[in-house]
């Protein structure tokens, strides 16, 4: 076991593994290498652009700005946003789908490939039973992917740092999906979903397609419909100082003195019908009818609470799916 007696095997070797962990590593090292490569490419991209971005942020003096509306900060802020805001908004939108991709390519083949090629008849009759076999694979691969995803999220948080104060970290479809715990929890969920669908569908490619569809079918509604429900949004009149600019705006509307709600469309239609077709006249019309603008929002300070709640739900779902896979293989082999 000492380094001096290590056999001169070709290729690179990690610490010596034995038993099922070795089997897991040997069978899935290419899938894991692929996952590391994909995360690594984006990681490098963020590292390089992030260094430039942070350095510009500092050289523009923005790190000393407390209030961005301060006249001395407005011009450098404009330059910075012009240079980097597109990046900061589009990259997270793309990265949002990475956990699903990892589930498709690492999770779906774990069982499906064995069932499809008939090798499960070999693998499950060599001495270790299939419950030990699948449990080891799910635990080791699941933990590895989760750790990789957490590291990636940490790197992303550093990269996104300057915009965290500008655009905010709360929201949907943006940085929130890649920061904190949600990204890693969704990776684990995608992996476990892939493994279960592979066990049920028994064919690799259809299982991969089903995993992609299933991951989106759970993730998208949870972002749109469930996330706003985690905590009741704060409702406040929409005045210049009414709510922090880095908050996540859930809804905005106008209401009259009696509390009757109008959305923006209805409001503009009524204003136009009354001949209020310029900004000045519109404001006058608003005042005349005692209309006030309101917003409901989730403040940035709730970021970690939302992350923990949402990530816990994904982890619970992942554990459920993992348990279902183990149960399914235990109960029903061929």
């Amino acid at each position, binding site marked *: 076991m000492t380094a001096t007696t290590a056999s001169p095997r070709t290729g690179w070797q990690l610490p010596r593994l*034995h*038993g*099922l962990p*070795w*089997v897991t590593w*040997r*069978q899935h090292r290419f899938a894991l290498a692929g996952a590391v490569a994909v995360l690594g490419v984006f990681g490098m991209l963020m590292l390089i652009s992030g260094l430039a971005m942070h350095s510009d942020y500092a050289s523009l003096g923005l790190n000393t700005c407390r209030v961005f509306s301060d006249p001395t900060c407005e011009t450098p802020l404009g330059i910075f946003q012009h240079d980097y805001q597109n990046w900061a908004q589009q990259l997270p939108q793309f990265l949002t789908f990475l956990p699903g991709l990892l589930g498709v390519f690492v999770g779906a083949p774990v069982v499906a490939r064995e069932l499809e*090629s*008939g*090798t*499960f*008849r*070999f*693998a*499950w*009759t*060599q*001495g*270790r*039973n299939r419950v030990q076999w699948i449990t080891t694979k799910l635990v080791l691969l699941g933990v590895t992917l989760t750790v990789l995803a957490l590291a990636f999220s940490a790197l992303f948080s550093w990269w996104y740092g300057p915009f965290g104060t500008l655009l905010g970290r709360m929201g949907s479809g943006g940085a929130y999906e890649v920061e904190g715990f949600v990204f890693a929890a969704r990776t684990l969920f995608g992996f476990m979903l892939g493994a279960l669908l592979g066990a049920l569908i028994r064919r690799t490619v259809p299982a991969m397609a089903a995993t992609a569809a299933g991951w989106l079918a759970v993730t998208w509604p949870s972002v749109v419909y469930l996330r706003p429900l985690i905590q009741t949004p704060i409702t406040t009149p929409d005045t210049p100082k009414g709510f922090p600019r880095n908050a996540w705006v859930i809804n905005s509307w106008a209401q009259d003195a009696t509390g009757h709600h109008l959305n923006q469309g209805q409001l503009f239609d009524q204003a136009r019908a009354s001949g209020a077709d310029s900004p000045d006249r519109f404001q006058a019309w608003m005042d005349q009818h005692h209309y006030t603008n309101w917003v409901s929002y989730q403040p940035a300070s709730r970021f970690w609470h939302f992350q923990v709640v949402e990530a816990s739900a994904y982890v619970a779902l992942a554990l459920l799916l993992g348990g279902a896979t183990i149960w399914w293989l235990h*109960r*029903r*082999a*061929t």
Partner: protein
Amino acid sequence: MNVIEAQGLGKRYGRSWALRDCTLAVPQGRVVALVGPNGAGKTTLLHLAVDLTKQTTGEITVLGGIAPGSDEALNRIGFVAQDTPLYQYLSVADTVRLVENLSARFDAANARARLAELGIPLNRKVGKLSGGQHAQVALAVALARHPDLLILDEPVARLDPLARHEFMGTLMAATVEDGISVLLSSHVVSELERVCDYLVVLAAGRVQVAGDVDDLLDTHRLLTGPTEQAAAVAAALPVVHERRGERQTSLLVRANAAAPPPPGWQTAGTNLEELVLSYLRAPNAAALPGPSASTPARRVEVGAS
């Protein structure tokens, strides 16, 4: 000890029974041929013995009463599945290491020695081996696990005659060396004759014949005589199968060599292939001399439904 014992074992897939009412005791230390046409339930029976599938009804135990799929059963039974599945993307050496990491009693040096003897390069990918070498790798790793019972499902079905011969040679040498019990399924009867000493015939999901090959050959005679007397002779004897010609008729009957043939008839011994084919052609005939202590009833049924 019986290496496999089944009582009323049945397995249903959807509406059709792959195996039905299977009562069987396979004794230890034998090389058992499990024979039957395609779809007879051979693979289902073997998969039940290694817990790759679960029965719908009945009981099955292995190695003297152990549940299939228990850790002990898994470690003491070597299994080579149909088409000898192995990971195509692994090298032969990594296949050996894989089994080494899965099996408690695996002897890697033994496996490598066997492979070296066969001239199979360890660094070659399994997917690049010939069909014969592929099957030999599967057999070599199974034997190196030092199993008490080795189960092989149609191991030679896809091999050419030469590779078949070599495979059977390896298997025979190993069984003589280690004295392991072997259960081997096949629909190719001719390959089994020189290897097996115990026969189980499975047809349409039921056990039709089970017994020691020598006993079966001793208790079956081929009678040949004039066709006009055939009906009378057949009525008096337990006939398994008859082949009626215009003038001469052959009857395979259950009788030992000492029994005198009817006047005007000739008697001769039979061989394993002819015996198996005769039973397969007569699905209603059965020969079940239960060899086990746990199945005391010695049943001899002829023409039972």
